[in-house]
């Protein structure tokens, strides 16, 4: 039964997440432009970009790159399906990490120096945010007694109330996960010239379109994680969760436009310190107090 629900959830996620993610991306570009005193592109610009990329000729440096990217997209959708049907949070985290790893392998497979630098930096980013993500799952388990996302609905109060420190830590690494400045080392949405577009250097046309769609799905999933902290046993909490997720997204856009990129050393240390302090202290309190 659970399998069936997950499959249906994946199909729904595959249809809805790109739509929502695309609108969010368009909003992001518009708001960023306004912050910079520009008018900015139309709301549907990300959609136009992807449609154009799909129209382009199929060119690839090798035959495996496209396969890696296709599977990265499939796993991103699977992770979303697992999460939004109330499935296992740990499983969702592992599947989305697998998706990131396939993205990295795709870049490495092209053997291009630019793509390799991008892939290396993406690896750094995965290493930086992964501890905090895992601690988030542990904290969630300690509060609800289950790794199932749906158990948040069994709570009297949102899990945020007892693991708000973990939430703050998660907000910090959300910037890395969404690849926003100051942590947009591997692939920036703005710097189209730097390091020749990092990890996506060798990806073009339909492959690049798949990468974009994958980013949309990822954004929706990560904002879902944000919302998860604010769910309790009352349907109204879904509205609260969506509002908080949107606020978090706007906060990310604001951060993106106001901070200069850091070096990877600063990325690693800050992310790990935040994970140890926010995650460690909060989990310590939950376990021993």
């Amino acid at each position, binding site marked *: 039964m659970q399998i069936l629900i997950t499959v249906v959830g994946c199909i729904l996620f595959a249809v809805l997440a790109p739509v929502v993610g695309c609108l969010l991306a368009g909003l992001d*570009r518009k708001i960023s*432009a306004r912050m*910079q*005193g*520009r*008018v*900015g*592109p*139309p709301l549907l*610009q990300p959609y*136009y*970009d992807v*449609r*154009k990329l799909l*129209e*382009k*000729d199929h*060119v690839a440096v090798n035959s495996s790159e496209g396969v890696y990217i296709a599977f990265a997209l499939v796993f991103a959708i699977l992770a979303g399906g697992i999460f939004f049907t109330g499935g296992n949070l740990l499983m969702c985290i592992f599947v989305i990490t697998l998706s990131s790893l396939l993205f990295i392998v795709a870049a490495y497979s092209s053997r291009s120096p630019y793509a390799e630098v991008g892939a290396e930096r993406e690896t750094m980013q995965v290493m930086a945010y992964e501890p905090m993500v895992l601690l988030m799952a542990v904290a969630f388990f300690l509060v609800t007694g289950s790794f199932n996302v749906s158990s948040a609905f069994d709570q009297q109060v949102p899990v945020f109330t007892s693991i708000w420190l973990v939430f703050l830590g998660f907000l910090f690494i959300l910037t890395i996960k969404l690849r926003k400045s100051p942590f947009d080392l591997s692939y920036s949405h703005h710097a*189209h*010239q*730097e390091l*020749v*577009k990092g990890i*996506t*250097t*060798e*990806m*073009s*046309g339909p492959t*690049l379109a798949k990468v974009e769609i994958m980013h949309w799905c990822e954004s929706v999933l990560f904002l879902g994680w944000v919302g998860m902290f604010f769910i309790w046993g009352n349907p109204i909490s879904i509205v609260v969760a969506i509002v908080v997720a949107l606020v978090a997204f706007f906060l990310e856009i604001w951060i993106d436009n106001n901070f200069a990129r850091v070096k990877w050393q600063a990325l690693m240390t800050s992310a790990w310190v935040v994970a140890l302090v926010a995650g460690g202290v909060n989990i310590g309190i939950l376990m021993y107090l």
Partner: protein
Amino acid sequence: MAFASKSPWVIHYDASSCNGCDIEVLAALCPGYDVERFGIINTGNPKHADIFLVTGSVNERNIDVVKEIYDQMVEPKIVVACGICACTGGIFHDCYNVIGGVDKAIPVDVYAPGCAVRPEAIIDAVVQAIGILDEKSKALAAARKGA
């Protein structure tokens, strides 16, 4: 309909000459004109670009670079020669190393003359290029269907 005209990403290469046109191209791309309104993005990656803006004339040293960038771009693609140097060689046409305009290296779709070429002329040329891009995109789609 073709979406190419809604999101034309440009790449810019300054081949040689006095750099005047190079500065004008960058001026046209700067936030003041906000070309992102039309989905235009200035990318540094030929594999992501649809429109190739070349300034300056082609010489023995850079002809390979111009060809390489053009070859790396994915169809459908458009080349715009910006400035009289890029069109014909301009005032540098009889220099010992200058081969001539960009069309000596790669096929050019739109010529934007001027020394230096005005931002208005560049924008005009890009608008024309977008029209041709749409046609090429449709032709490619038709060819794919036929194949």
